[in-house]
């Protein structure tokens, strides 16, 4: 939604964006894990 500037007694909230980057909380898989997963994927060959 967007704030309505026509509110009779209050101007709209300031349009002042602030970036809020998503934090990393879960560990990314290691290179070894990624390789193992890739090999597992082709294990049927």
């Amino acid at each position, binding site marked *: *939604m967007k704030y*309505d500037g026509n509110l009779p007694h*209050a*101007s*709209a*909230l300031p349009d002042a*964006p602030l970036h809020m980057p*998503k*934090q990393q909380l*879960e560990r990314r898989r290691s290179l070894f894990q990624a390789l193992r997963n890739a090999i597992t994927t082709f294990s049927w060959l």
Partner: protein
Amino acid sequence: MMGPILVRGLALLTAAGSSLWGGYLFLQYTGADGISVLDLVRVSLVALSGFWLVWGATAAVLGVFTPARRPQFDPRAKPRGLTAILVPIYNEDPVTVFARIAAMNRSLVALGIEDRFHIAVLSDSNSLEAATEEAVWFEQLVREPASAGRIFYRRRENNVGKKAGNIEDFISRSGAAYDYALILDADSLMEGETIGELARRMDGDPGLGLLQTVPRVINAQTLFGRTMQFSAGYLSPAFARGASLMQGGEGPYWGHNAIVRVSAFAANCGLPVLSGKPPLGGHILSHDYVEAALLSRGGWTVAVDPALEGSFEEGPENLIEYAKRDRRWCQGNLQHWRLLGAPGLKWWSRFTFMQGVMAYVASPFWLLLLATSIVAAVFPRQPIVLPALPQAQTGIWGLALAVALVLVLPKVLILLRGMVDGQNRRVGGTFPALLSVGGEIVFSTILAPVMLLLQSRAVLQVLLGIDGGWPATQRGQSRLTLREAWAASWWIVLTGAVALGLTTTLAPAAAVWVVPATLPAILSPLLIAASSHGRAGARQPLLFRTPTEQCRSPVMEEHAAIVEQWTQRTVAAGQATGKIGLHVHA
């Protein structure tokens, strides 16, 4: 003053030492004829649950011996930074919520510092009726003094991320306009003096990322609510002082009645959606602990000041409302299990997550201890795996006494301190304080088995993958009938009756240990219904009286006056519904 690391070490040694000693005593008694596998399971449960019990008691004892320094400040000094006071709401009664905002605004205006504070109502209400009501009463709110250009309202169409998402939405859109954000709950109320001091503290310490106050519970009317209110008003400050001593600059954030530095919050607290489905995956429910940990990871100080007064909230008025909130907190805390290994977190933050997990897992542990003890009594001839320990001098009653002491000692010490530091005087004197502390111990002991079963069920539900969702808080609907109490607690009665029946039939000698736990469970509908009653409107009794009942804060008086004044205009406000609805886009 000891550093936090030394205090943590001391508390850790006390808790670990006491729980190991308790486990040893338990094993001496239960394994008198040799130790079985069941004995080893039981002693592990005793040691693990006992550790967290002693840990909590240690924090309180530390708090008793920590001086409460009253902050000195000039309430009319203007903070340099601009603060946004954020009030996230979700299908609340707008009259009481907006009246609180009006009372806080008047308090700021009276001090002449209102121009350093904007107020934003951040609505996540998904009921059209609630949203319309909010729009009507916002019209009333902006008639308050100095509101032009300072008081805002916005409603999200999609309440993604719940409260944390609501705050994040505000910061992403308007955060750069503010230095600080005072994050409140819908039931929060704060004195203008306290709000001003929070902002000045942020001005004065550029490394301070978050400053938490210890809100006192107010306006409780029922026996349940007033016991919680007394506990929060009389006992909690000592616990908070102790916790603050241990936490140092890696302190807690309880999600409301706290000020944050917006730039630090934005840079560090964008919460990801956890992989997997709820309850353990998805959006982070108990976001506050995670945000505190992330600020700490980013090098910011996260502090709590228990000495800052003038910070209030309301609490659940009956056990069913309490259990609903606790179910949400349980899910949120168990979700933290997945974050124990999050990269870069400080060890204390990981420990805090573990503490939150154990706060809930301890209940099924105690329940399992009771169940295994019944099994051990029914089947006394277990295969022996280890030889018996030397016989105990103290016996099992000594251990039971030690557990009782751990639970009661901090409260007795707080009472004794109250005789010296004037806290007893603020609740009507030492005799009423003694009655109330005694009453609180009796009340919490009687309700403990009911709470234990409720928490155990909550943990089980989360582990089974049942999502508790985000039910709106029902405020002001406290009184429960016996029928309602029965509908919520029949399974507790059944569990208690089965456990007592089995024990008295199969192992009567063990009944003495089982009766104290099962009798309150069997009587739970009566306890829940009876404790939901109170004397609304009348002068509150001396029992469980709190400093805020004894001497109401000016902002509380202002709030009550505004609610009364506004509700007299309900009809007129109702007529305005259509007009305001045109101005607010949802």
